[in-house]
Structures are given as structure tokens and as C-alpha cells.
């Protein structure tokens, strides 16, 4: 079984890396956006964004001062790793990273608004599990800032609304959100399932690298349709006008009730901060970018 202390070390390091160093697919997408952008003001902002990403990585500073909420996605083989050890490790790593990176203490009680000071509280950090029998544990940290998270949408569309209804819901939501979620965005769109499954799929799709298409033809087609529509709005970088409003759109599907068409949208700012590592039963760690 993998030691809890190793899990703490790995998760702490993943939090640090995601706060300071963007994954290469995101860096490439931002550079592409700068190449493709035609509007002068959007270009100036994208230049600042690209430079900021370089400075943060070089000097190991937080890319954005809102270091977000810690979301940990765990894909584990229960024969080599105890989920309860992961649960405890996530809490310890959150506390350690808050001190060491440092992270901004963002976690508060929802009603009293009391700040716990260490990014830990009931339900925080957020941990989500999937399981395998392949003899590995894959850990992925996603740091989610509030600016984009606050724009999250769920709509239970009538099934007859179909593709047109989904496009309309996404375009309207992006336009309504304007500059608040810090575009250029990555949009995660969960279609189907029960309501919370649509939301979960939308968020989890942000773990997929930018540019990689959805698992089935229908999802891939919808992704292309939505990306084209969102990038025709002219909203642009920070909602101040431009060609590139979204870097990508990721669609994930689940079967749903014949009377329902749940659609959820997860907004992700350009600072898509994620980092992954894979552990074997012997405790060997592979850092994935």
C-alpha cells in the first residue's frame, strides 16, 4: 500500500506546481491565441498574460493571486492505495501548501464567512474518485478561482430544444458572463445525466488537454459548433473585444431521462491550473505535465 506521507508530498508538490506553472497545452493555446488575435487591445492583454505565465514559472510565483479552491481528482487502484489515506493526505497537503507556496487562504464558512486560514474546511479540499485495477494511482490537482467558478450554469432544457437549444444556452451564458470569468476561457459542457452529473462532467472535462476532442463523434461535433459560436461573439480577452473568447470547448456526455436534457457549463479562466502525477505500488512517482 502507498504510504500516506508519500501522498502528502506528491499532492503538496502538485498544488505548488499548478499554482505557479501552467501545463504546456495551456501555454501553447495562449501563444496561439496571441498569434490569431486581430484586435490591438486584446493583443496587448494577451502579451501581458503570456509574459505573466513566464515570470510566474521562472520565479515560482502564483500565476494569479486567487489561488482558488483545491480540487483533487483521484484515479486509484484500491489494492495499492487506501482512499481514506488519500482523503487525509489531501487535507494535510492543503495545509502545507497554504504555508509553503504560499496560497491565499480562500476557504470560509458559507454563512458566518469565517476564514479557516488554511484552505481546509467541511468539503474542502474537494476530492473526487474514480477506480481502476491497473496497479497505479493518478492524482490531478485543479486550482479553481472564484471569478470563473461563480459563472457556473445549469439548465434543465426541454429535450426538443436539442442542439440549437444547447448552443443558445452556452452563447447566452458566455455573453451574460462578459469579462467576469477572465476570458479567453476553456468551457466545460456536461450534457445529460442527472443534474449533478452534468455539473460534474462539465468540471471534470477541464482536465482534458486543450485541443483533444471528446470521446465520441457527437460530442466532438458539438465542441466544434460551440467553439465557433462562442468565438463569433467578439467578446474577446477580458470582455474588452477580440476574436479569441474561448481557447477550447470540452463536451462530455452521459445518458439521461427521456424527459430531460440537462446542460451544465463550467467556466474556466485562461489560468487553467492543473498538474498530475502517477504513482505505482512501489512508490515510484511519474510527474505528468
Amino acid at each position, binding site marked *: 500500500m502507498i504510504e500516506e506521507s508519500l501522498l502528502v508530498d506528491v499532492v503538496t508538490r502538485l498544488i505548488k506546481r499548478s499554482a505557479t506553472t501552467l501545463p504546456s497545452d495551456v501555454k501553447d493555446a495562449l501563444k496561439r491565441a496571441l498569434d490569431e488575435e486581430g484586435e490591438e487591445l486584446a493583443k496587448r492583454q494577451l502579451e501581458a498574460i503570456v509574459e505573466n505565465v513566464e515570470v510566474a514559472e521562472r520565479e515560482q510565483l502564483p500565476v494569479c493571486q486567487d489561488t482558488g479552491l483545491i480540487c483533487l481528482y483521484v484515479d486509484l487502484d484500491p489494492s495499492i492505495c487506501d482512499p481514506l489515506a488519500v482523503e487525509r493526505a489531501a487535507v494535510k497537503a492543503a495545509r502545507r501548501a497554504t504555508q509553503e507556496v504560499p496560497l491565499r487562504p480562500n476557504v470560509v464558512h458559507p454563512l458566518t464567512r469565517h476564514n479557516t486560514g488554511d484552505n481546509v474546511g467541511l468539503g474542502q479540499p474537494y476530492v473526487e474518485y474514480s477506480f481502476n485495477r491497473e496497479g497505479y494511482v493518478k492524482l490531478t490537482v485543479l486550482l479553481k478561482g472564484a471569478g470563473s467558478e461563480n459563472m457556473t450554469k445549469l439548465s434543465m432544457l426541454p429535450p426538443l430544444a436539442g442542439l*440549437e437549444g444547447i448552443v443558445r444556452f452556452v452563447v447566452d451564458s458566455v455573453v451574460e458572463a462578459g*469579462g467576469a470569468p477572465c476570458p479567453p476561457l476553456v468551457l466545460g459542457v456536461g450534457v445529460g445525466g442527472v443534474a449533478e452529473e452534468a455539473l460534474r462532467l462539465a468540471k471534470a472535462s477541464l482536465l482534458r488537454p486543450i485541443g483533444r476532442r471528446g470521446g465520441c463523434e457527437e460530442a466532438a461535433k458539438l465542441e466544434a459548433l460551440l467553439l465557433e459560436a462562442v468565438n463569433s461573439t467578439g467578446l474577446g480577452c477580458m470582455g474588452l473585444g477580440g476574436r479569441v473568447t474561448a481557447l477550447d470547448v470540452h463536451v462530455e456526455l452521459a445518458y439521461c431521462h427521456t424527459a430531460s436534457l440537462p446542460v451544465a457549463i463550467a467556466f474556466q479562466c485562461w489560468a487553467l491550473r492543473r498538474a498530475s502525477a502517477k504513482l505505482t505500488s512501489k512508490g515510484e512517482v511519474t510527474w505528468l505535465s
Partner: protein
Amino acid sequence: MAELTTPISEGEIEKLRAGDVVYLNGLLVVARDKAHARLLELLSRGQPPPIELKGLAVYHAGPVAVKVDGWRILSMGPTTSSRFEAKAVELAHKAGVRLIIGKGGLNPEATSRLRQAKAIYASYPGGVGALPAKSVIKVVKVEWLDLGLPEALWLVEVRRFGPLLISVDLHGGDLYLEVKRKVEENRLRILGLGPRRQP
């Protein structure tokens, strides 16, 4: 490249137009929701704030900072101005702030009140936290740490802080409004070509 140095005069503000890009040198006040509330509370009681704000720029941000010997700012990206826009504009009226820097802009009412105070609004790209921290030469003062690090009142000295996009000027220019109109036209066109009916 246009640069502004504090204290900023009304004449300098007058010259700027929405769409201009400037860089700031000199003193920068960094404050968000709670520091704004406390500043206004003091001013309304006729007490002087711990920082003289006349002619300065107020940046809407809550930094990540550490104290080793002195304070060091690690990350200082902008926060959403609309959360406390009325207070931000009030501060321009009562304390002579000339330039508000933030993200997302102000509502039309706050925008027109801001112009009456002979002050303008500039946008700094959201999420850009490490770059502005590099423009900070020194932390001059930090007050009200009881509010927590991000909510405290900071006075820092900056060199070439920017790019600041002037988005509200004194002459009716408002980038956010301009883009909003264009985006609405585009939205109707996109949805007209694709979806035909409202679900």
C-alpha cells in the same frame, strides 16, 4: 509608450482616451472591499485616512504577500471592481483619487459619477498576478492587517505598472459599453443563423 507618474493631475487625466494604453510610476494604493468600507467610514467621520489619496491611483486587488524582514508582494492581479463600485467612486469624490484600476469595469451610474469626480477607470488583465508583483519596487505601508492580508490597505511604489487599458475616459468613452453593443449584435446574428427558436 505613455507613462503616468503620481501624483496625477486633472489635466493628465483629461488627455487620456478610452482605448489608450498607459504604464504607471510612483505610488499605488492597493485595496478591495473591506479597506474601501473602512476608508469611507473614516472620511465620513471627518478623520484623515492613514494614506493621503489625492492624485493617486487605487488598484482593486488583494495581494498574496509574505513578510521576511520587510513585506514582499508575490502576486497581485486585479479583482472585480463591480462588487464595490459605488464605494470606489465615492472614494474618488471624497479623497481625490484620479485613476481607478481594476477588472470588469463599472455600471453606467458609477461610470457617470466617476467622471463627475474627474477620475477615470483603467483595466488590468485578470489573472495576471506575478507580473504586477514584479513592478512593485517597495511596499511603503500596510495598514489594517486585522482585515486579513488580501483585504488590508496597501501603499506600494511601482515602476512601469501596466499595461493599463483606459476603458472609461472623461469624454464619454466607455470600452465596456462599446464592446457590449457589438457583442449583442453578434449574439443575435449567431443565434439567428443557428437556433431559430427559444427553447
